[in-house]
Every structure is written in structure tokens, then in C-alpha cells.
């Protein structure tokens, strides 16, 4: 089977078979990344444009490496340096990029649905690298990959996602991803960070971290997005209080299953949502996630290039 689509916009509309295909293909690309010569000629002559309207180092670098290891040419468009600050619309920016014969546009945008609009209007393949509070599909795919590598099976796996669920596209994509693959998903956080009716996505809600962690096989900590706090939005009284209630400490980690794994999409805030001892512990697979991210993004670019 093959990925019969031009774009990767979200996990929500992917089938279990498509997800499995991406993960299987990523295994071969991980092997490529382990070689002395970390490059294959597969996308030679193709152009990948990273169009980022929000700051990001990790995701952009990961996509850049993925494209380069497939021998594609990569161009990075950062918002502050681009003509967007001169009043150009998203679509005009994208059309200009496409006019330069780009084959892939990797888009990060603060507005949910921005990649969907571009995907409809452009010939190039669009890969969603995070759109507002909507989805971050390649993050969920690399999380799935990392877990499959460590735990083999998704069925019956208990996953707790902890933090600001309401503002997190990582949480949303992972809820879709892990429930689709048959895992049991819990979301844990203060009520101010819990989206309304989140249960309808098939998850169990916990407001108490200790209770939410009991017996889980995987803990996914989300970064406390302090930038979401502002005069109009107060989600928690202080970082100190948040850390006291929702920081993953060694004592709390001990409540989970003995072989539980700790994940984090990065960047981590030591001492806020995750204690340094936990982030550096043997349970942590945070750096494996980063390694696997390149392989998964190579797989996505490779598979989408067939659907163009």
C-alpha cells in the first residue's frame, strides 16, 4: 500500500494503515541516519520550503535535516525576515514560493487550518508543522514511532498527557494518534487548561497528577506555555504553584508502572513541568524522540512525493 495523498495536514484524517505505513517506512530511514554517509538520493532535485510563521528551532531543523538526508534542496523562510511583515497575505507568500517550483511546503502557522487552505490552493505538497492549537502531526508520528520502538504494541498501553491540553496541538494530535492505535489515553492538568468536552475525543480526564499517573506506561509532559499567559488569560496563579502541582518529580514517576517511559516534545523547562532528575533518568526517551523525528519526517516526505 502507499500513501495516496498530496498533503499531511493532521492525524485526525489518517487511517490506522496509513499511520502504520509511515512508521514502517521510518524504520528504514532511521537506518540511513545511522550510516557514516547519512544521505540517499531519493528526493534529488526536489525543493522543500520551510515556511515558519512561529519561532521554532527543533521542528524546523528536524525537517531541514530530513529533507537534506533525502538529497532535496531546502529553503528556510522565517516570518520576521520575510515580506509578511510588509503586508503580504499567507496565500500570496505561498504562491510566490510555489512559483519558484517548490515541491513541498512545510508550514508552521499560528492559525489553525492555515495548512488546509494552502493544501487546497497549491500544487505543492503541504506538510503541517503545527497550526495554532489544531494539530502537529509529525510530532505525534514521532511519538508513536518512539513508543512502538520501546514498547512494541499500542494495544492496552496507558498514556497520560500532562499539562496545558487546551492550548496544545501536540496533545490534540497525540490524542487522535494514540486512541486510533488502540492505546488508553488520559489527560491531566488544571481545569483552566482542559478543553471543554475533551472526553468526546475518547480520553479520561484527571485534575490530580498523582491520580492520573497511577499505573500508566507512558507519561507525556507538555511544556508550560508561559507565553499563553497574559492580561486577558490567567491559567494559573504562579509558575511555582504550577510546578508544585504538576511537575513530574521522581516521587510522582514512581506512581506509574515500573517500566514507564517519560516523553516531552521539547523544549523542556527543568523544574517547571519536569524535574531534572526525571528528564535525565533512564525512563526518559526525550532525546530518542528527537532522533526519531528526523526519520519520521523523512518517511513523510518520501511517501508524500508519491502522491504529488
Amino acid at each position, binding site marked *: *500500500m*502507499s*500513501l*495516496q495523498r498530496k498533503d499531511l495536514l493532521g492525524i485526525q484524517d489518517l487511517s490506522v494503515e496509513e499511520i502504520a*505505513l509511515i512508521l*514502517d*517506512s521510518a*524504520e*528504514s*530511514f532511521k*537506518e*540511513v541516519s545511522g*550510516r*557514516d*554517509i547519512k*544521505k*540517499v*538520493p*531519493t528526493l534529488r*532535485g526536489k525543493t522543500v520550503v520551510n515556511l515558519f510563521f512561529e519561532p521554532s528551532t527543533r521542528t524546523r531543523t528536524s525537517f531541514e535535516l530530513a529533507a537534506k538526508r533525502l538529497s532535496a534542496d531546502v529553503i528556510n523562510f522565517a516570518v520576521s525576515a520575510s515580506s509578511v511583515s510588509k503586508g503580504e497575505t499567507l496565500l500570496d507568500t505561498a504562491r510566490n514560493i510555489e512559483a519558484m517550483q517548490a515541491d513541498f511546503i512545510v508550514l508552521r502557522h499560528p492559525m489553525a487550518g492555515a495548512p488546509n487552505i494552502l493544501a487546497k490552493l497549491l500544487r505543492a505538497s503541504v506538510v503541517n508543522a503545527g497550526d495554532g492549537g489544531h494539530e502537529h502531526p509529525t510530532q505525534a508520528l514521532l511519538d508513536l514511532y518512539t513508543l512502538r520502538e520501546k514498547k512494541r504494541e499500542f494495544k492496552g498501553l496507558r498514556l497520560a498527557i500532562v499539562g496545558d491540553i487546551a492550548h496544545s496541538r501536540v496533545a490534540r494530535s497525540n490524542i487522535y494518534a494514540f486512541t486510533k492505535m488502540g492505546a488508553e489515553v488520559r489527560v491531566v492538568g488544571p481545569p483552566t487548561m482542559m478543553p471543554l468536552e475533551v472526553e468526546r475525543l475518547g480520553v479520561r480526564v484527571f485534575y490530580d497528577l498523582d491520580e492520573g499517573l497511577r499505573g500508566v506506561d507512558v507519561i507525556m509532559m507538555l511544556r508550560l506555555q508561559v507565553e499563553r499567559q497574559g492580561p486577558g488569560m490567567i491559567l494559573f496563579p504562579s509558575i511555582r504553584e504550577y510546578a508544585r502541582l504538576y511537575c513530574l518529580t521522581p516521587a510522582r514517576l514512581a506512581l506509574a508502572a515500573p517500566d514507564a517511559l517519560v516523553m516531552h516534545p521539547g523544549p523542556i523547562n527543568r523544574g517547571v513541568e519536569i524535574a531534572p532528575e526525571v528528564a535525565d533518568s533512564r525512563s526518559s526517551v526525550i532525546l530518542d524522540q528527537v532522533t526519531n523525528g528526523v526519520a519520521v519526517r523523512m*518517511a513523510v516526505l*518520501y*511517501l508524500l*512525493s*508519491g*502522491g504529488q
Partner: protein
Amino acid sequence: MFHGRFFYAHESRLMNANNAERTVMDAQEISRALTRIAHEISERSRGAAQVALVGIRSGGVHLARRLAARLTEIEGTAVPVGTLDITLYRDDLNARKEQPVLRKTEIPFDITDRTIILVDDVLFTGRTIRAAMDGLMDFGRPAEIQLAVLVDRGHRQLPIKATYVGKNLPTALEETIDVCLEENGETDRVVILA
């Protein structure tokens, strides 16, 4: 059945399922051919100490293992075997509607300064072998690359020649060659589908 463009030999059986078949090699002939090739490898490389086999997915994998077993028997020392998936090195990725499924490459030894013998079931256009050589070079710098195939059916589109051939089999372009092996749950035989 021929699609107007070349196709890689290992895809041929998928394209041609229901036609009349004629057996051109039986189990014993396959076995003798492999034994002869093993002896030729041993003779040519003076003891096979620096030899390693790399089977090309998917048709060459089992044949490479069988050859390695025979070589080990002849030489008394184990001969390393690897597996190479050439998908990422194909020259028709842009022309295809959908991407071929990737399989794993596993070369658990350093190929640098070794004599690497690529193994495939059918040598046809030569494009698979071109891709395999490019792929192999990304793993190191072998002292030499040789090619062993069970069947050479002609119709080369690239200047590539096998070092060891089980059987030369002149074919028409529209015929397909099917190599059936025990490892895949079939009786060992090579059939030609017209």
C-alpha cells in the same frame, strides 16, 4: 502485459499472475547452480576470506544466504551476509504514481576493503544493480564489487554484466521470469510466464 517502460525484475511476478508457465529450472538445477557459483567464488577470490555477500531485496536475500552456507562449507569459515533494499536509489521514483514500500537494509559488517558479491535472482535491465551499487557505496569503499545471479534473462538497458550466472535464459521482452523458493513457502523452481 509489458508496461512500455522498463520494470525491475522482482516486480514482474506481481504483474503477471494467471498466464501459462513453463519450468526452466527445477530444484536440483537451482541447487547445482548455487553450488557451482559458490565454488567459482571460492576459486576467484582465493579462499573467500575477504568475501561478503549482499542479497538484494527481495529476490536475492534467500539466495545470498544459501550461497553463504555453501561457501562456509567449502571454506570452513563463516562468510558474512547482508541485505540491501534499493528502493531509495531507484531511478524511476519521479515517474511512479505511488511510492514503493521500503524494506530494511541490514549490512552488519564493514564493507570497506572487502570483496562484496551482490546477489539477485534475475538479471534483467540492470537498473536494480546500478541502484544497488550506488547504495552499497554509501556504506563504504569495497575493494571490489561482483555480481551473482541465478538467471540472466538479457535485455540490459545499462552496461552491466554478472560475474557469476546460474543460467543464461534468452527471453522475449514480454515474458516474465518467476523464481520460486522454499523460503517463501514454494517449491524451488524457475518458471517462465509467456
